[in-house]
């Protein structure tokens, strides 16, 4: 069981900044995120796009913002459970919460801060009638263990980076890799497109374009896919079908936690501390809603800061504290580091 002071669900900008603000109050944080890396949308959807409305940064790439936030909170030694989705929450008799992920990892904390943005990123599933029948029986929407494909016939569908990258990777592992895309053009890094071109010429990747998988067949597990290439329809034998059509955010299991939901977001008390209808559970950043809500990173930072003050009161009832300024007090990391402003020089002028 992982224990912490504030359990943060979502490792996007708001979640990461919470670690810093909580650290100033001597509170430890642990973050859970369905994505394999921190940064949320900033690192998953648009790492190379500039953001222009972060105060004091006239321009910063979303990926760089993530790096800076990681650097800023590093001294407070946040824990991470990445690549796992927070699925269930149980309130304990002592008022704390146990949050369990889809992989069974358990976390215990007196305060839970949901900073889940638009939700956890789930793979977008193609509209093939019987696809659900073959899930985990040859159909996988994400490649988690490449070894699963060793010496197997794999059909990958999609036209973006992940379809290209996995086709390249599996061309060395699988006995046969077929990449199917609706268009002749691919949207990805130039290197990846060129590499696939090379592997196609070398006969290591079968490329079928412009085409679409429209059906799946097999007895208990997938044995072939039906491919429609312009007017032609044919079957392609395979052991695995991996559709890679990107990820789309879904509020997911959090919607069943008994929280008040409005407009696909969690209602909070914005007059005070962004607490939800369940005491001890807060919602901050894009995942919450209140009158006048704006989904901006800078608003998430503000909400995280106020939330931490309320978390302090829950964790340290009755213990006095006043807001301190980092320029005056410095920053004491949990890792033993200390940052502080240099003292003014006091010296007589003779």
């Amino acid at each position, binding site marked *: 069981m992982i224990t912490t002071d504030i359990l943060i669900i979502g490792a996007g900008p708001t979640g990461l900044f919470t670690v810093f603000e909580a650290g100033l109050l001597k509170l430890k944080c642990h973050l859970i995120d369905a994505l394999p890396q921190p940064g949320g*949308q900033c690192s998953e*959807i*648009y790492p190379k*796009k500039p953001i222009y409305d972060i105060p004091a940064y006239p321009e910063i790439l979303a990926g760089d913002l993530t790096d800076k936030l990681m650097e800023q909170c590093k001294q407070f030694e946040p824990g991470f459970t990445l690549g796992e989705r927070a699925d269930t929450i149980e309130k304990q008799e002592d008022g704390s919460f146990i949050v369990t992920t889809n992989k069974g990892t358990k976390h215990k904390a007196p305060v839970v801060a949901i900073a889940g943005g*638009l*939700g956890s990123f789930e793979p*977008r599933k*193609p*509209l093939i009638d019987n696809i659900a029948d073959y899930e985990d029986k040859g159909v996988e929407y994400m490649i988690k263990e490449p070894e699963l494909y060793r010496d197997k016939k794999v059909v990958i569908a*999609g*036209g*973006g980076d992940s379809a290209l990258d996995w086709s390249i990777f599996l061309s060395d592992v699988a006995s046969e890799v077929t990449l199917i*895309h*609706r*268009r002749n*053009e691919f*949207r990805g890094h130039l290197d990846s497109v060129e590499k696939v071109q090379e592997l196609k010429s070398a006969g290591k990747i079968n490329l079928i374009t412009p085409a679409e998988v429209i059906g799946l067949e097999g007895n208990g597990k997938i044995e072939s896919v039906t491919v429609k290439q312009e007017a032609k329809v044919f079957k392609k034998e395979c052991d695995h079908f991996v559709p890679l*059509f*990107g990820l*789309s*955010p879904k*509020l997911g299991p959090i919607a069943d936690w008994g929280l008040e939901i409005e*407009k*696909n*977001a969690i209602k909070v008390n914005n007059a005070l501390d962004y607490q939800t209808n369940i005491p001890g559970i807060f919602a901050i950043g894009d995942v919450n*809603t209140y009158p006048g809500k704006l989904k901006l990173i800078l608003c998430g930072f503000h909400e995280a800061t106020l939330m931490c003050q309320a978390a302090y009161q829950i964790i340290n009832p009755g213990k006095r504290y006043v807001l301190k300024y980092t320029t005056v007090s410095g920053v004491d990391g949990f890792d033993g580091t200390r940052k502080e402003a240099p003292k003014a020089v006091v010296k007589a002028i003779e």
Partner: protein
Amino acid sequence: MENQDVNITIIDRDGVTHKIEAPTDMAMNLMEVVRSYELAPEGTIGVCGGMAMCASCQCYVLSDTELPEMQDDEEAMLSEAFYVKDNSRLGCQIPITPELEGLEVELAPES
């Protein structure tokens, strides 16, 4: 001052027709107009913020209104999206301009 609004007809995902006025001077796009009139629930449209990266604002163009030509990123996104038809466009890639007067679109299903 001259009225800078254009009249647009939007059929929402429940099949309800909305005749709305959209400002041409606020640098808005069609996806944002749908959100401003709350014609689709928040979180189901404009998910990526308008970067042609999610296709949640896909719509079918029903009128023969002349629209700005499709750029590579929009075309690439539509080639990976679901429920795509010949008249599919991404709302976020259609800026609201006076040329849009009389435009009629239907929102594609959520996917």
